[in-house]
């Protein structure tokens, strides 16, 4: 049967709805990276000495990496060399006297921006049950529901505030999961990070609402380097969600974040990401380089860390949310949907490092490739000698739309304890013209067909997202694939 493959091709025609620019006066440092830049950032934030020291150490380490191999080369992604001297490392919307104290002080233009993005920051308009920290370029502009959370002893604030108000916690945990020596981008982030979110859930507290950070890159030529640190004390529970968007620009912009999670005995952290950075245009021009290090440590017994990510944006994604399963009986989970369309590239997956006894991990990865997109799953399951009775289950599925895209799978297994059980399953399938025609013959449009197939494919992962965001993620996939079959 002869069929024309161009039906599937035409769906690669997306619109990015979040690509507007906010006209706002910014307080920015000149582009370029040096010890002076770092001192300047640290001074702007009134940081204590230990913080500056840490940054400078990270910077010096980064310099040695930059002088030798620079960026890690092992990932299945391709991009021209990045000129780190051309990046602006700090850009903040201008405010009167030292930053907004409450929402009334926030520039209305910023509030409008978040409203336009569907993230109202005024508490009465907000989705009930979600507290939001809004990060705009290099700084946090607002954090909602802080008082209500404070009554329970929960700290939810910007990273900058945490450094000033809870230095002992920051000192204790910063870099304890992702040291600045971890990798090139982690070192860079440690040197220049400007803001991010900080959460601390005290012993025995179940956080009553979703905590959420919404990242927005706005200024041109600016890199966003944020840092998130979540600490869940014994027996606590928290569900955290992050979302992100950026304007459409022809130049690539770097986003190099670090996220560290620490779960003590019997604590659970659920971390969900809906990543929708600007992916670049149809020819692959522009878009965000999303080079992110995310790792959680299940420090305590019976602790649990669960990562769920829906990655639809960015020109390039390099990201491996991982779990160090140190406490006995601790559990690590990774649920991922990664979509690459047009010329997007993704090399994403996870590392599950089993150290404690009877530790368990689950990996479910769903990769969708369309257009010329290249999608790689890279995952490591490492079972150390001490991890008696450890178990892992990995499932890794790829879905292809059209015949110019690619799906790749790089699973690594390292098992040093003979009592461990490790399972790996993988499939690759293609949305065929046959399937599309079947839908159309039943009265459904091509968009409906692709949407239903893709959502069916991702169901296992969407199930893990908080309700409102699952709906959001479904819609997002629909938009991202708009026009890729036609």
């Amino acid at each position, binding site marked *: 049967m002869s069929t024309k493959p161009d039906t599937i091709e035409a769906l690669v025609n997306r619109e990015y709805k979040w690509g507007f620019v906010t006209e706002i006066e910014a307080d920015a440092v000149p582009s370029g990276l040096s010890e002076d830049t770092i001192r300047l950032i640290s001074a702007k934030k009134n940081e204590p000495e230990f913080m500056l020291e840490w940054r400078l150490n990270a910077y010096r380490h980064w310099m040695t990496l930059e002088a030798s191999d620079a960026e890690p080369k092992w990932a299945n992604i391709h991009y021209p060399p990045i000129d780190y001297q051309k990046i602006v490392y700090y850009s903040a919307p201008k405010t009167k006297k030292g930053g907004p104290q409450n929402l009334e002080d926030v520039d209305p233009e910023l509030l409008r921006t978040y409203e336009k993005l569907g993230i109202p920051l005024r508490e009465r308009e907000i989705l009930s049950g979600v507290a939001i920290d809004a990060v705009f370029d290099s700084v946090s502009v607002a954090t909602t529901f802080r008082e209500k959370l404070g009554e329970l002893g929960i700290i939810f604030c910007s990273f900058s505030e945490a450094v000033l108000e809870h230095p002992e916690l920051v000192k204790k945990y910063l870099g304890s999961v992702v040291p600045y020596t971890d990798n090139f981008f982690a070192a860079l982030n440690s040197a220049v990070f400007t803001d991010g979110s900080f959460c601390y859930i005290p012993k025995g507290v179940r956080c009553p609402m979703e905590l959420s950070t919404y990242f927005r890159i706005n200024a041109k030529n600016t890199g966003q380097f944020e840092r998130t640190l979540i600490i869940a004390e014994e027996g606590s529970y928290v569900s955290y969600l992050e979302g992100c968007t950026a304007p459409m620009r022809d130049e690539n912009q770097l986003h190099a974040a670090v996220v560290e999670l620490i779960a003590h005995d019997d604590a659970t952290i659920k971390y969900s990401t809906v990543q929708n950075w600007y992916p670049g245009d149809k020819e692959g021009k522009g878009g965000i380089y999303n080079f992110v290090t995310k790792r959680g440590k299940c420090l305590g017994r019976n602790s649990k860390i669960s990562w769920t990510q829906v990655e639809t944006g960015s020109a390039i994604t390099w990201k491996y949310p991982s779990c160090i399963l140190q406490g006995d009986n601790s559990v690590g989970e990774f649920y991922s949907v990664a979509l690459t369309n047009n010329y997007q590239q993704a090399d994403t997956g996870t590392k599950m490092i089993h150290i404690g006894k009877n530790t368990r991990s689950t990996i479910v990865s769903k990769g969708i490739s369309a257009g010329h997109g290249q999608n790689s799953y890279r995952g490591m399951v490492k079972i150390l000698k001490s991890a008696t009775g450890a178990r892992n289950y990995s499932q890794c599925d790829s879905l292809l739309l059209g015949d110019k895209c690619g799906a790749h799978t790089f699973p690594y297994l390292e098992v040093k304890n003979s009592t461990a059980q490790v399972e790996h399953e993988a499939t690759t399938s293609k949305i065929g013209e046959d399937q599309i025609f079947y*839908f159309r013959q*039943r*009265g*459904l449009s091509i968009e409906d067909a692709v949407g*239903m197939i893709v959502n*069916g494919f991702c169901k296992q992962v969407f199930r893990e997202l908080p309700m409102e965001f699952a709906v959001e993620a479904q819609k997002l996939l629909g938009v991202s694939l708009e026009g890729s079959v036609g």
Partner: protein
Amino acid sequence: MLEVKNLHARVDGNEILRGIDLTVNRGEIHAIMGPNGSGKSTLAHILAGREGYEVTGGEVMYEGKDLLAMLPEMRAREGVFLAFQYPVEIAGVSNMYFLRAALNAIRKHRGLDELDAMDFLKVVREKMKLLEMDETLMNRPVNEGFSGGEKKRNEIFQMAVLEPKLAILDETDSGLDIDALRMVADGINRLRSPERAIVLVTHYQRLLSYVVPDYVHVLSDGRIVRSGGKDLALELEQKGYAWLEESAAPVKSGVSL
């Protein structure tokens, strides 16, 4: 309802249909028979709007409209249904969800309210009873892991739910054992209606013992070489297609009924 006039079509440059004429009225059942490669499935696919065929001549009118100018989904919404010879599997999409979306797309097109899950379930239950279908099939992904017989019955079941005006059944009998064939045939017979036309595309006569057609057409080498009543199928069964191919030459191509 359906009027095919001097239809010519090519696939990859090869002429497969060489002037088909066919008129189907509401309430009628037409059987289109013919040897492998005669163009039967091509005709069915062109009527449903599948890509990859080049219509080089002729026209197809459906309820007074130019069928060939309509998108496949529009044809479906206007009441054209194709039961596939090889129904595809769709992982992750439940039969129930799929069929409700399809029914609602059609209802919406006709200006009817969309059915919610509860109302839809009522419709499904009723049709399941009619076709003696197993309800567990509804919660499984579309055609995934279905046996050959289950897939074909599922096609007929979809037809029952979507209530088309013109149903084209492409080799719905192929690959079925005798029990499954009987069940599928019973289903088709229950869906016979004065309002509905059915075109059965088949290689063998055996389906026609259960679903008795009003007209039989024999397709050979892209033309209808003989048309007649139900007895033509029996004659064909006895004498084989070679009989017609030999005698094809003197018959005027495309007898219209």
